[in-house]
């Protein structure tokens, strides 16, 4: 290694350290933004160092420069546009799209490296094995993330798409990965093995994600995030770049931890989610059960407003229904009115509220809710018994006390202890079921009032009604 190459690799090491520092600063909302800036600056330095290295090595052709610069500019422009324009509700799609391109780029690097080698037949397993793994993981992530983004965007059906033989295919395809990988390692110059592996991996990404329901998306995105990281790390093995290995594995552990947290929050194993068959589509059946509806206590906006205005502690329980109704801002306004009136307001956010890990927090932050009011499940659950009112908006299964009893679809799932509050108000359109498709015992609890309305309209009414009491 010559001096320049050495210097560049020390710079890479410094950048990798800054990535760790950046992620470390994410442990508090106060420092998180600085952490991201440090990480971004380190990335910019690493990219500049790579330009230096490329110039120094001098093997790049004019066409190579054209490819590098034009590709970089086009990609940067697309990224800039996407980051500026995306709505916070569409964040899961965007993250999924970034997973796709990251995985895709990693797979392309391995394909290119195997094709460009001077004597591919002589490549040792040291390059061809990580190369094959990179191709498999990267290509699965690419097609799988695109399908996931399509499902979230509504382009692909959010309901589990099951076709005859899907299960069999999902066993046969991974088996063919093993065959293809071994083949490619034994004969790295075989184009059939190379392209075959790419094709099979792309197909598997599709068949893996299609049968997974919309409600399980938080787990799927986190899992694909972990895959992308691993693919990038494999690309690091192929290219002999430790920076890629470090960064890739940091992302992979992040994705892995989030996948585990999400699966735990749904009380389901990761295998169970990937195999599918439980999650339903985004549009849960809105069937009104006449018998159950008769036992609930409907309340009006004025009733609820009185309760809220005279409460000393209110816990708001937001679910994805709130975001679907685009009512975060109305909720934020109502909460601010109550806070200014001296009511202690906080939000109980279930880990799977939203379409990706932590999604609901971002949606509330966008609606001007201070992060000090956002509480995690384990912290807020002991507070419910002191709450005068628990206001549930667009959340269903995560509030259902039946989860504490054995023998039903959500048994054992960690829930918010909403039923322990002194009184409960649920804003809901109808008595429709949640994703699990079961009755919610909370709604028939005598201390629960049901405010049947659209979330956005209901919250505006509440805001003006509360305004009259406290104004």
């Amino acid at each position, binding site marked *: *290694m010559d001096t320049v190459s050495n210097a560049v690799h020390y710079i890479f090491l410094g950048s990798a350290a800054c*990535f*760790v520092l950046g*992620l470390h600063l*994410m442990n*508090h*909302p106060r420092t998180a*933004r600085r*952490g*991201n*800036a440090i*990480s*971004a600056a380190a990335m910019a330095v690493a*990219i500049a160092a790579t330009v230096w*290295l*490329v110039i120094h090595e001098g093997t790049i052709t004019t*066409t*190579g420069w054209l*490819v590098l610069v034009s*590709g970089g500019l086009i*990609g940067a422009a697309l*990224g800039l546009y996407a*980051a500026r324009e995306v709505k916070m509700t569409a*964040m899961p799609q965007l*993250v999924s799209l*970034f997973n796709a*391109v*990251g995985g*895709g*780029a*990693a797979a*392309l690097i391995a394909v*290119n490296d195997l*094709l460009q080698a001077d004597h591919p037949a002589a490549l040792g397993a040291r390059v061809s094995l990580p190369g094959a793994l990179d191709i498999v993981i990267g290509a699965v992530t690419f097609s799988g993330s695109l399908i996931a983004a399509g499902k979230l965007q509504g382009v692909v059906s959010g309901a589990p798409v099951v076709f005859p033989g899907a299960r069999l295919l999902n066993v046969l395809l991974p088996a063919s990965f093993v065959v293809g990988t071994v083949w490619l390692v034994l004969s790295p110059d075989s184009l059939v093995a190379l392209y075959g592996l790419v094709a099979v991996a792309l197909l598997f990404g599709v068949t893996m994600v299609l049968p997974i329901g919309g409600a399980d998306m938080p787990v799927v*995105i986190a899992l694909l995030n972990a895959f*992308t990281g691993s693919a*990038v790390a494999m*690309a690091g093995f192929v*290219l002999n*770049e430790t920076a*890629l*290995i470090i960064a*890739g594995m940091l*992302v*992979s*552990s*992040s994705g*892995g*931890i*989030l996948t585990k*947290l999400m699966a735990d929050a749904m009380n389901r194993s990761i295998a169970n989610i990937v195999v599918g068959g439980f999650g339903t589509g985004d549009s849960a059946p809105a069937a009104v059960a006449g018998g159950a509806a008769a036992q609930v206590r409907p309340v009006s906006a004025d009733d609820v407003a009185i309760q809220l205005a005279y409460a000393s502690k209110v816990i708001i329980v937001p679910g994805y229904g709130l975001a679907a109704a685009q009512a975060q801002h109305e909720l*934020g306004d109502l909460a601010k009115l109550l806070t200014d009136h001296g009511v202690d307001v906080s939000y109980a*956010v279930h880990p799977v509220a939203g379409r*990706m*890990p*932590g999604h609901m*927090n971002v949606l509330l*932050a966008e609606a001007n809710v201070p*992060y*000090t009011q956002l509480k995690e499940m384990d912290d807020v659950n002991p507070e419910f018994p002191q709450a005068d009112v628990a206001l549930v908006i667009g959340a269903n299964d995560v509030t259902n006390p039946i989860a504490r009893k054995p023998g039903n679809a959500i048994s054992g799932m960690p829930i918010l202890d909403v039923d322990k509050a002194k009184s409960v108000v649920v804003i809901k359109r109808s008595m429709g079921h949640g994703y699990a498709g079961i009755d919610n015992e909370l709604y028939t609890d005598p201390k629960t009032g049901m405010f049947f309305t659209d979330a956005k309209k209901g919250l505006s009414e509440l805001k003006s009604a509360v305004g009259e009491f406290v104004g």
Partner: protein
Amino acid sequence: MNELDLLTAITVFVLSVLIGVEVISKVPATLHTPLMSGSNAVHGIVVIGAMLIAAESHTWLGYVLAFVAMVFGAMNVVGGYLVTDRMLEMFKARPAEKKDV
């Protein structure tokens, strides 16, 4: 470039996983979405790999693959960091004064 010793590479791999788990598990659930998009931006380091293969390519197929990898990688880096910053900017300890609409 010199062949990186396999043992060294695997050592780096294993230690990175351990550091990742240690650091990430301290991130509060409130910030899980920015964490995800932020770590997403970190795997945009793949753009460096794309640059290196662009430098080594000498065939048309190689150029095309490198070009697509460059577009993907650059989009990943730029988009990932910007959108994370946009999200984190919204997290405030006190509600901001409402802007006039």
